[in-house]
């Protein structure tokens, strides 16, 4: 297991190393990519996470080829139990195939997760980097804004945004992005505060680099690793968020997603468990996978935890 997992490692190590030489290697010399992949591969739960994610991606992107059924088509009586002739995983309240729904809902669910996480990370990095880099008044002002968003109950704020601007997929993505950036911002700020005092940054400043260059080209690359982990975890929480909104009836009814299937069938949980449980398991597996991989990356990047 370890042997095979290490093979691609050595192949990958060269270009990765070459790319990281200019700045990264200078700050944290104990971070070669080989070390990272080796540490990641040693982490069994991280590998399990990868397998789960691979399963989810296969279901979502190969599923429609193997099981090409319109998720909106009524194939059987409402609430047909799993194992039936027409619908292997049963049907919902108007007789639509749950398996077809899960397969086709994966795309929207993953898209919401990835896009919302991207939005929250971009906002978070912008605010966090400015606050951490400039400090002083700018820091205080930006952190007050961050705290303002942090003390608002995230789900309520997202519900409000979706209620006002309509239950469209794009609105939902933006709403989730808007309510979930503060954590990334705080993380980015902490990293920037630490790194901006390092010698190599001072060297760049002395050489006449502008603030924007220092922020985005000098400090950001060094601050990225923990932010990448945070982004990964943000994908998981965005998926849960979307499911929560759909559960409350605020999902986009015109885009099939796992949350939507759960939300529309929740009244029938006692009559037809499969309509809610099966898409719920799909969400669980996805979020678990993301979380395990995220933790694995985090551990592998952190020299102190590497041998844990």
């Amino acid at each position: 297991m370890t042997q095979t997992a290490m093979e691609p490692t050595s192949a990958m190590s060269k270009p990765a190393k070459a790319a990281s030489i200019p700045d990264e290697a200078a700050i944290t010399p104990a971070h070669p990519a080989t070390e990272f992949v080796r540490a990641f591969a040693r982490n069994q739960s991280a590998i399990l996470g990868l397998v789960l994610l691979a399963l989810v991606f296969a279901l979502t992107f190969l599923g429609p080829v193997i099981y090409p059924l319109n998720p909106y088509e009524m194939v059987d009586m409402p609430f047909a139990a799993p194992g039936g002739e027409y619908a292997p995983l049963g049907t919902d309240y108007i007789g639509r195939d749950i398996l077809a729904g899960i397969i086709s809902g994966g795309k929207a669910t993953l898209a919401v997760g990835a896009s919302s996480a991207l939005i929250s990370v971009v906002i978070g990095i912008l605010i966090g980097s400015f606050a951490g880099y400039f400090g002083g008044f700018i820091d205080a002002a930006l952190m007050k804004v961050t705290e303002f968003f942090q003390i608002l109950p995230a789900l309520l704020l997202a519900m409000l945004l979706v209620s006002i601007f309509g239950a469209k997929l794009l609105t939902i993505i933006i709403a989730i992005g808007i309510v979930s950036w503060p954590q990334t911002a705080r993380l980015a700020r902490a990293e920037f505060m630490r790194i901006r005092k390092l010698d190599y940054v001072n060297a760049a400043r002395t050489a006449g680099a502008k603030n924007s260059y220092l922020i985005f080209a000098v400090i950001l690359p060094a601050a990225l690793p923990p932010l990448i982990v945070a982004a990964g975890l943000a994908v998981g929480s965005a998926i849960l968020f979307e499911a929560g909104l759909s559960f409350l009836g605020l999902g986009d009814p015109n885009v099939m997603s796992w949350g939507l299937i759960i939300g529309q069938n929740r009244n029938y949980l006692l009559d037809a468990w499969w309509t809610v449980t099966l898409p719920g398991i799909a969400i669980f597996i996805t979020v678990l996978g993301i979380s395990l991989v995220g933790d694995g990356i985090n551990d592998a990047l952190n020299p102190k935890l590497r041998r844990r």
Partner: protein
Amino acid sequence: MKHFRKFALGAATGLTLMASSALAQQSLLVGSTQVPRHFNGAIQSGIATAMPSTQIFASPLMYSDSWDPIPYLAKSWETSADGLTVTLNLVDNATFHDGTPLTSEDVAFSIMTIKENHPFKTMLAPVTTVETPDATTAVIKLEHPHPALMLAMSPALMPIIPKHIYGEGNIQENPANLNPVGSGPFKFVEYKQGEYFKLEKNADFFIDGQPKLDEIIVQIFGDTANLVMAMERGDIDMLPYLTGVRDIERLDGTDGVSVATKGGEAIGAINWLAFNTKKAPFDDPKVRQALGYAINKDFYLKRIMGGFADDATGPITMTSPLATTDVEQYAFDLEKAKALLDEAGLAPDGDGTRFTMTIDYIPGGVETGRNLVEYLRSQLKQIGVEVEVRTSPDFPTWAKRISSYDFDVTQDLVFNWGDPVIGVNRTYVSSNIRPGVIWSNTQQYSNARVDELLAAAAVETDTAKRAELYKEFQQIVVADAPILYLSEMPYSLAYKDGMDGIPTGIWGPASPWLDVSMPE
């Protein structure tokens, strides 16, 4: 409050409950999610007020299950030959709960108050004056014949309120709206806003031997799930206005609980699909009819509504003596639907799609709303119509979209309220196309013959001739299809086994509970 605590405590321990109910003899605990704004049904419509209002206030008439008037405060009545005068002969032994005798003055005051303040403007619009030659005679003078007056004298629409209490100042702000004094079978005791209200037997009620109950407590629940559970556990005795199919099924299968699936036909809530008839392609009757033929109503009634909703085939509630079934039935036929769309020039494109339309629905309705539109999305795809579902976060959002004609098709739930003049005309007459007003003619439907028929039927006093006029009206609007009728709203009522005299008449629980009694 004290009393309620006692009751709640009693409910907590079974033994005490038995003891206390033996003491209170006939006590009925009703559960509801409806919060009454106040109890004065003379100035407020809706079942939240009508249910308690009909217990507290008496009215000139009651109605039998076959839509026939029964004497109540009026022991007899007659309409003049020209239809312009309706004389009520009142009982002479009715008193208000404060001991004041009820006279024709109160009847005259109530009718004029309702005419001026009640939201149903057409209900008493032709009334000019009410004369009171003596204490037990009220003579209603009409501008033109108004047969709808008969149903308008029902308990749910014409509570007789005491002039000496409601006659002073602005009636909307009268404190007695929240502390009502009537002449009905039950006296108001107390109302803890949003929590419960309590009524007790009117010992001096003018009909001997009624009511049977000694007290009624209506406990208000925050949500239906809790309410249904309370009924399941036996915490409450009666649950009126049950609408969720799963809730009805669940209580129907609960030991010790019975469910009445009839009652309230006069309220006549009809679930339907309404078109924006000024917007292409729905300005073409063929397109509207095509959708009618594409809907499998059998599936809707049996599968989506669980068999608890009655079919609706026209604008007038099916059990009304004025309703006819002799209309186009829109029997499920996909080929016919496709042919009609072809005729309308809506040929399928490369993907088989003829056109895309949006469907709105009243937020909150699960089976009658969301499940129905989701079904339509799948169903209409079969004839090449793509459905985009538009959700509304709350009722005002939906109402604003529909009343500003920003929609293609919407599910809607509209109430008959007795006579067609009160609840039916508003949807079809062209003079009621009023931007910004929900439940006006939001379809913007306009048909000169329909206007003519409804105007004639409103003043026709001969019942048979009146039914003929309405028959033609029903045939026209069903064929023209500005609206596709789906079902009557199932208003079920769950009650404890062994209870008697359950209010399942045409006004359902919004009628006096004279015969309701608890098991011994």
